[in-house]
């Protein structure tokens, strides 16, 4: 089941309203003879979603001036169970995980396609061993023009034409990567996080506005084991093993959710208090997600809380409220759920 609030400008959620300002269950039973109720939501973009239904991938939303659904034709010999499909406003990217091949399709003209092979490189220090590495892509993070690839062995590559990112100085194996509009976050299995990219809006969390070319440890969180990371457009969230939430970066619309009535941006990770009217809610945070200028979190009692920009109803509350600056409870789930956000959308999905 998908429960959604926010941008429906291209009817990607099948409702007629352009804005869904209160959480609604997506009820499209059948769509062009597809069983949407069994759809797995893979990515929410600004004008389309990518879903997988019974081993086929579909683009739903704006396809062209007439159509709203397009079946994504996978490259020959591609096994649908072994690919990652993602997109941005211009391109659709199909990644064969084990072949480490990347097909880049032009959204405007599907016949235009480039195929790129990701060359698995050993870090320079190891290259003397001349060992050919057996490795596979396991995760791709894509937002606007930023893209990161992560391999099973924990190597990170950046860019549409993948360039190796040196993470040999990072403690532990890299287990997750996240892209903001112009910054990057990685998480290692030791619970440490590293950031790099543009820091002009404080999104790197090192206490200043410097840009960083190499992944650099967020030292303020060194004593805290982080288990999940998330990048918004210009802000970042981290979830600790104890269910604590940390936020930093740009806060121009309250996306950090840290203080009622204030929009001060944070150059260092700030522990976020979840407030039930005036008392601190001590329930643990279970899941986190970010849109371009808002954040959503799920607590252990299955309640969903949001903060930040609400111009398009993405917080799940009436668009009369343009933004809120502290997390507010907006929905109570009954099932075990997880969160996924698009730039202006929040989705609650059954686990």
């Amino acid at each position, binding site marked *: 089941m998908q429960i959604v609030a926010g*941008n429906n400008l291209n009817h990607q959620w099948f409702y007629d309203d352009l804005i869904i300002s209160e959480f609604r269950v997506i009820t499209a039973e059948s769509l062009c003879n597809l069983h949407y109720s069994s759809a797995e939501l893979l990515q929410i973009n600004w*004008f389309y979603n990518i879903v997988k239904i019974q081993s086929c991938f579909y683009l739903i939303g704006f396809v062209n001036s007439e159509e709203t659904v397009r079946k994504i034709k996978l490259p020959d010999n591609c096994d649908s169970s072994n690919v990652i499909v993602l997109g941005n406003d211009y391109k659709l990217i199909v990644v064969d995980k084990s072949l480490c091949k990347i097909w880049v399709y032009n959204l405007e003209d599907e016949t235009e396609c480039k195929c790129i092979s990701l060359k698995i490189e050993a870090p320079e220090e190891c290259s003397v061993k001349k060992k050919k590495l057996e490795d596979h892509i396991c995760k791709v993070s894509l937002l606007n023009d930023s893209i990161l690839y992560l391999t099973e062995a924990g190597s990170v590559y950046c860019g549409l034409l993948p360039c190796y990112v040196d993470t040999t100085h990072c403690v532990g194996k890299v287990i997750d990567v996240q892209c903001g509009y*112009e910054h990057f976050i990685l998480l290692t299995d030791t619970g440490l996080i590293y950031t790099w990219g543009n820091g002009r809006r404080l999104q790197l969390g090192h206490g200043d506005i410097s840009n960083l070319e190499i992944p650099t440890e967020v030292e303020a969180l060194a004593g805290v084991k982080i288990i999940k990371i998330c990048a918004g457009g210009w802000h970042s969230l981290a979830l600790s093993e104890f269910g604590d939430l940390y936020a930093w970066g740009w806060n121009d619309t309250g996306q950090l959710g840290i203080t009622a009535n204030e929009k001060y941006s944070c150059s260092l990770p700030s522990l976020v208090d979840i407030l039930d009217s005036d008392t601190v809610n001590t329930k643990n945070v279970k899941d986190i997600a970010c849109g371009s200028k808002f954040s959503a979190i799920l607590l252990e009692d299955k309640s969903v809380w949001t903060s930040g920009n609400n111009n398009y109803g993405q917080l799940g509350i009436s668009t009369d409220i343009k933004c809120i600056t502290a997390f507010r409870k907006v929905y109570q789930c009954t099932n075990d759920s997880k969160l996924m956000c698009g730039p202006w959308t929040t989705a609650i999905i059954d686990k």
Partner: protein
Amino acid sequence: MSNTSEILEQLEELKCNVAASLQEISELDICNKTFLQAYLNDYSKINPSSIIFIQAVIDYMYEKVNIGNWKEVKPFLRKTITIASYLKLLIYLHDKKVFTNSVVQECFKIIDYGILFGSPLDKEPKLLQKCAGILQSIHIHRSDDSTNKIKLETNVVDLQEIKYNVIPLEVLDCPSMEYFYKNFILKELPVVLDKCINHWPALKKWQDPNYLLEIAGMRTISIEIGNKYTDADWTQKLMTLKEFITEHIYKSNTSTGYLAQYQLFDQVPELRNDVTEPEYCCFSDSDDPTDIMAWFGPKGTVSPLHHDPKKNLLAQVIGEKQIFLYAPTDSEYLYPHEHELMNNTARVDPREPDLTLYPKYASAKAYYCLLKPGQLLFIPPKWWHFVESLSVSFSVSFWWE
């Protein structure tokens, strides 16, 4: 009273050129491009929900232009904001019958947002300025009935003798072009020039805030809030010129607001007619046009000690400013900030230099002037300068290479 259909007709005459300029945004994503195309080519596509969609296009492009350095933003993204703002204006007026004050105000808001964040189309570079001109015709018409006109306050400059350890700048009466070129442009030395802009209509007209309000009161401008841009709580805010004048110029109990380094004359061409570019700006090494900026604020606005890469003639139109200047060779005595974004700004406050923190300042050679209405100050490239307004002040700067 003019009804909207006449105005709409005039605005729509520009549509042809806007449609032709779609090729300038051919790089835009297919979704946004398709919608802009549809709206421009087929009016029947417009319905009550169009305003939501066109606003979403603008909001989304605004997010995109915030990615990376402003100067490196791809032009098609900003051009899309221009085209979408024009369309939003048409869509907004589509179901309006008459021009109430609030309708005109909203129209100017749409236009000014487009001017601030968009960029000129090759096919119709002054598109939004033209739209504003068309709307201005009704607005001027209606402004007679505005009831609470603002009275001009005479600004008494605090004239206690200011005792700084400084060298007063030379003041010259309208020197010849040759003399100015040889002694100041070539030698890169600062100087105050008197009686060069006596013919500017602005000197008289701008003394009356009602004149500014009549021409541009409804226009949205970007105001710097806070004492100086190096302060932590410094920020920028969009507001109308009317709000700025009533809330910040003639009220001292609010935070300092400053219309600083602002391209007001590009946005409101009527005001451009009140000033002329000084002839001295013709000594140029490039074909780029001179950047003309407005600086309008209450008493007490401060531009911290900094330097700019271009030649600058600062014209004082209303009120007085005190300015401290230092040669580029004095940099090490002024303690510039280290961060790359701030290294053209220095830490020393020339009004009360802290010699324990900044001991080397003792070796700096400070030049000083109190700039009066009708005077021009020549600031050579890279010369450090600190500027403070001593009264309500309106200056115009001319930057050229």
